């Protein structure tokens, strides 16, 4: 597919079945990945930063739980901590909030997507993966509206298809792709960023 590559940040939302696909994704992203990744995975309120640790070990990227106030870096992925909403500030720092659950979820995918959409505009990619509810659908509309790219995991392949289906139903999804295609696309974008830099030297 032809893409005008302006992308710097990826936001990902997933729930049921998410750990497996996140593992697949982060294990496959290339070293020196040029984009920053933000992830909301619905978790049980007690989970103790386990997922970030686990993913970090199998990825070239540095993967950590998001801390309040930290600045987004390329080649890093930030996981929303259990029980906190994750938002992005204008200066590209991260914010956390314990405000009410949104559609029964905290962290909420919509909250992250909405706040990232208007900060990163056409530099943002929003991805909805396997999951059991419709969180993320509203957020994808926002991302689309502000010029970002919207991608959804192929529901036929997703372990739980409700979330991808709800996202597709918005009519604002640019690409419906299998995991391997999503990975290929993201690695290509990163590579292009590298080449672009070399050319400009």
């Amino acid at each position, binding site marked *: 597919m032809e893409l005008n590559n302006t992308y710097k940040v990826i936001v990902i939302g997933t729930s049921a079945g998410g750990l497996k696909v996140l593992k697949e994704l982060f294990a496959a992203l290339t070293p020196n990945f040029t984009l920053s990744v933000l992830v909301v995975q619905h978790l049980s309120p007690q989970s103790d930063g386990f997922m970030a640790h686990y993913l970090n070990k199998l990825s070239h990227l540095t993967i950590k739980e998001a*801390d*309040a106030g930290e600045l987004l870096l390329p080649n890093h992925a930030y996981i929303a*901590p259990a029980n906190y909403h994750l938002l992005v*500030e*204008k200066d590209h720092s991260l914010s*956390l*909030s314990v*405000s*009410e659950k949104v559609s029964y979820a905290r962290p909420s995918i919509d909250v992250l997507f909405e706040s990232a959409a208007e900060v990163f*505009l056409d530099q943002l990619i929003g991805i909805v993966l396997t999951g059991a509810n419709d969180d993320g659908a509203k957020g994808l509309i926002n991302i689309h509206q502000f010029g970002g790219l919207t991608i959804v995991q192929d529901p036929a392949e997703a372990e739980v298809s409700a979330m991808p289906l709800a996202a597709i139903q918005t009519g604002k999804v640019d690409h419906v792709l299998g995991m391997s295609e999503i990975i290929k696309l993201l690695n290509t974008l990163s590579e292009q960023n590298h080449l672009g830099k070399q050319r400009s030297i």
Partner: protein
Amino acid sequence: MEQTEHQNEIQTEDIELELLLEAIFKKFGYDFRDYNKAHVKRRILQRKQSLGLRSLSDLQHKTLHEKGFIDVLLRDLSINVTEMYRDPSFYAAMRNEVLPILKTYPYIKIWHAGCATGEEVYSFAIMLKEEGLYHRTQIYATDFNPVVLETARKGIYPISKIKEFTANYQQAGGTHSFSEYYLAKYDSAILNQNLRENIVFAEHNLVTDSVFAEVHLIVCRNVLIYFNKTLQNRVLQIFSESLIKGGYLGLGSKENIMFTDIYPFFETLDSKNKIYKKKVHLP
């Protein structure tokens, strides 16, 4: 083209938001200008939408001219979500690592800053009772939102929450049966009156009000995450000045004094549970 339009729209909205926060401060004294913007904006836009207003300028007009409307915005902007023994491991650490030291003082002063509807304060009160410290403890519980303080004073919570509170209490190392501490009546759980005896609930704004004197422990959880760096430093400075040497500071699980101005004056007692101790010998 559509995009620049969007950018333009966002820029206008951001200007209006700044003006609204300025107006709230000038007229009512509540200062949200140094709060993290993403969150403030989200709440304000939700309010604008639910009222069907066209712009934040309209919302500003309403705020300045409509009597009592500021209370609605205050509620929107102060996130009062809380629970008893939120993050049980924090309370377990307090019980095991901090209370034994506090025990050595003849008289103990504790400040809960940003106590919301009081669940955190009563959680401590119960713990202090169980450790035999309550009778010589004075607890100041403050928040800038008078409405939540009213609820806190009453100490009455929906019975539906008791299941979660009880589970948290047990995980936090509670030594009794949680049901000893409340009376169930219709759909309410009324906390025992005697838990309140040594608690003073008072209005205090961390942005604009000043220090408390000679406090042994300050608990301020899930308040600093809403503040930008400048404001965090200012508030932490107030905490540092309010604490006795060797006093303790307990923050929320995602809050941290590393990279703040007061860091050199504190040692980390428990990095996971965010418990710090003011150094006895200051650098």
